[in-house]
């Protein structure tokens, strides 16, 4: 048997916009092992696997198979070399059966013989799927198995799974792990991508930790601990209060209170439960309080319920149970405009989905959510709208061709400035800022961060939800870590060690002191 299935040497990827996603990554996958790929958002996991599976080509570096160097031009090339990937988002035809979905694009094999092949495959791997039921009638876990079968039917030697457990129930996860071990024992290779420490420790044989596009460490699972992995994931240098601080504190994760704040809380969330679009509980009983003059940060890997939490607080998503008190009123079930009137502003995470109406003009976008304040007998007061928009453009330095330019003609940073300007024109007491600097250049991001700090000085309360760990740690008075719909810990940034942060983000709960 070959010494390795696939080897990557010095992989570097620079995206067209100049982002350095990977720099000099070396990686070896051996037959008969499950290799874990661990890292937080933006560490380069996805980019790396896209290169390994032929979806992207590297800017520099090369891939080697036992037969020599190779270049993939498409996922098909990778499949030909026995490398197949199962993505987080399924690509199945809902109305087709499992058998038909596997047959799709396979070619050169009749359905009966494919059926025989799949039945043998299911026998060997223990991966059971009803072959003749339309995929839309299958549970999510079963659909994922269809995706895996699709890849296995192409006789792959190396299976890459991108965050496969994010959609699974605990039972389904356990079954998946059993199957992966099975596959390993048959001498195949598996790359398992995750940000969950426990899973990495449970199912893998070897773990490669990525941090900011580089390999931060490579360990054998037997010989490591959650704490070591957490430290590798986060690094030892974390910026706090906008100056880099060497963190030295060591020890157990403990319940950390964070600095107690002054006065009455302006936003109180009690036992909040919220469902995601797919109907699962995305927020599972969260409680917290937000005080005037503080920035309360919510950190965590994306997809752990942050989006649903923000939408529920801001009146855009149905609350399953629990309470949200805004300035002394329970606002569950109230429409967004009423929340704005009470003193809330919402800088949404997705500028293009919620924040702006792209074909509308700058002036029209400047009154979104405020439109009812600009009418006289039902008519829009054009002049008042224009003055209002002009003030936002001036005060926030929005670069635009004019007030009647379409919002889509603005750059990302200027779009965000327009949104932020509009939201602050509501003179809010509570600002919910979700991913406020995502995708912005450094200048614009700094502008927004300074603004949030200024709002804090003015005594407003800010709920900052961000996947950018440095940002949350640098700006927040208190930080909560969100994992699968709950907080794993709550602390003042100075109380945190890289290890603690990594453990909390990876789903290890803080123990009560």
């Amino acid at each position: 048997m070959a010494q390795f299935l696939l080897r990557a040497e010095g992989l570097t990827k620079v995206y067209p916009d100049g982002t350095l996603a990977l720099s000099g990554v070396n990686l070896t996958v051996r037959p008969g092992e499950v290799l874990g790929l661990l890292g937080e958002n933006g560490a380069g996991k996805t980019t790396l696997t896209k290169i390994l599976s032929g979806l992207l080509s590297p800017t520099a570096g090369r891939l080697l198979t036992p037969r020599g160097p190779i270049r993939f031009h498409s996922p098909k090339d990778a499949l030909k070399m026995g490398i197949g990937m199962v993505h987080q988002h399924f690509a199945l035809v809902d109305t087709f059966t499992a058998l038909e979905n596997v047959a799709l694009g396979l070619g050169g094999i009749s359905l009966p013989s494919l059926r025989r092949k799949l039945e043998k495959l299911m026998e060997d791997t223990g991966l059971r799927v009803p072959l003749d039921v339309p995929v839309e009638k299958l549970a999510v876990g079963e659909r994922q198995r269809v995706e895996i079968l699709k890849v296995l039917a192409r006789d792959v030697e190396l299976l890459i799974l991108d965050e496969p457990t994010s959609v699974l129930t605990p039972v389904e996860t356990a079954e998946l792990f059993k199957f992966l071990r099975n596959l390993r024992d048959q001498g195949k290779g598996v790359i398992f991508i995750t940000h969950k420490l426990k899973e990495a420790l449970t199912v893998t044989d070897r773990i490669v930790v990525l941090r900011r596009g580089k390999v931060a460490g490579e360990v054998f699972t037997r010989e490591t601990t959650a704490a070591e992995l957490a430290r590798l994931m986060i690094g030892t240098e974390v910026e706090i209060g906008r100056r880099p601080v060497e963190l030295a504190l060591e020890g157990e994760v403990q319940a950390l209170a964070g600095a107690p704040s002054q006065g009455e809380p302006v936003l109180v969330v009690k036992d909040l439960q919220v469902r995601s679009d797919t109907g699962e509980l995305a927020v599972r009983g969260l409680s917290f309080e937000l005080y005037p003059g503080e920035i309360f940060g919510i950190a965590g890997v994306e997809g752990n319920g942050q989006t649903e939490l923000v939408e529920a607080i801001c009146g855009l998503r149905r609350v399953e149970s629990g309470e949200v008190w805004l300035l002394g009123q329970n606002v569950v079930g109230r429409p967004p405009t009423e929340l704005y009137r009470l003193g809330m502003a919402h800088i949404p995470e997705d500028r293009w989905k919620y924040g702006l109406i792209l074909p509308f003009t700058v002036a029209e976008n400047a009154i979104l959510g405020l439109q009812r304040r600009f009418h006289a007998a039902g008519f829009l007061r054009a002049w008042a709208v224009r003055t209002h928009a002009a003030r936002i453009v001036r005060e926030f330095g929005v670069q635009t061709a004019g007030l009647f330019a379409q919002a889509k003609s603005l750059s990302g940073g200027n779009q965000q400035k327009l949104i932020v300007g509009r939201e602050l024109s509501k003179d809010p007491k509570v600002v919910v800022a979700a991913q406020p600097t995502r995708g912005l250049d450094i200048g614009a991001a700094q502008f927004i961060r300074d603004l949030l700090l200024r709002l804090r000085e003015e005594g407003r309360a800010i709920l900052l939800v961000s996947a950018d760990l440095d940002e949350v740690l640098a700006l927040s008075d208190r930080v909560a870590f969100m994992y699968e719909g709950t907080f794993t810990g709550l602390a003042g940034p100075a109380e945190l060690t890289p290890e603690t942060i990594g453990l909390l983000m990876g789903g290890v709960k803080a123990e009560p002191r």
Partner: protein
Amino acid sequence: MSWLWRGFRPILESVLAGLIGLGAGALIMRAWGYHPWSAYVVLFKESFGSGYGLASALANATPLILTALTFAIGARAGLFIIGAEGMMYMGAMGAVALSLFKLPAGIHALLALLCAAAAGILWGLIPALLRAYRGVHEVISTIMFNWLSHFLAFYLVANVLVDPVRAEKTLSVAKTSRLPLLMRGTDLSLGIVVAGFFALLLYVFLWHTVIGYEARAAGANPHAARYGGVSPQKTVLLVFALGGAVAGLAGAVEVMGRPPTYAVYSGLTNIAGFGFDGIGVAMIGRIHPLGIIPAAVFYGGLQAGARLMQMEAGVPFEMVRAVQGAIVLALALPELTRILKVFGRRLKVRREQA
């Protein structure tokens, strides 16, 4: 001055598209050995070159402006209302039904228009409720309601509103309820003023009122609209109501303002099609209430000129229709592609959410 360019661009595009359409029509005629130049000269001289021709073009445009408004306001709010045809039948029935009563002139006509608008609104009510509260797609429901309306109107024409003397048509609209003609010897009635007024009204509504702003927001980005406090349900109901009202009026102005019979014929032959033609007109007019007016007049002119093209230039009627089709298609294409793109994107979003 990019915003100025944005205003002019659609007009330039339309002119260019019109020229392309004329060129395509000319090629069609050429291929079958007719003389495009003389045919076009007849077409435009007769439809726009004389008072009588222009009056016919305007008369033809009258109901089209109103049905086009139905589609346009829907499209602006993100709804694809194909139901103007059915609403328009009901409007015509409502206008005729009021002639069962005796009322003083003027008031009679006004009430007939109101009744027609109400009938149109009512006909859109069920699709609107289904869309707002059950998510039933309005394309499906309004097409189904067109057929319901079609056969209901058949029944009403033959049984309830039938002319006791001439069984092939309904009662004629009472003299007190007719829209006065604006030009002797033509079909041009006060209806064109009604249509123009509503085009202006809907323009003001969409671009200068708060609710209109909200409706356009819901059409351009439903998520952002919800974020901005717009109720999707209320918007759907309101837009359907406005669309139903103008579509109902389209039926009314046709029966109340079109000499000589002022009635609906069995088989609905004299009103059928305005609703669907209105969709084409709305596209040509770039689904803008004010753009619809010239679009409808142009479309009406093509219809008026067609007869003469046949008589004077010797182009057979089928050929005239083909040429018209080429021109209309070319004109509608820019907006059509834009709408299909939006529609496709929305379907994609819906699939992702499923």
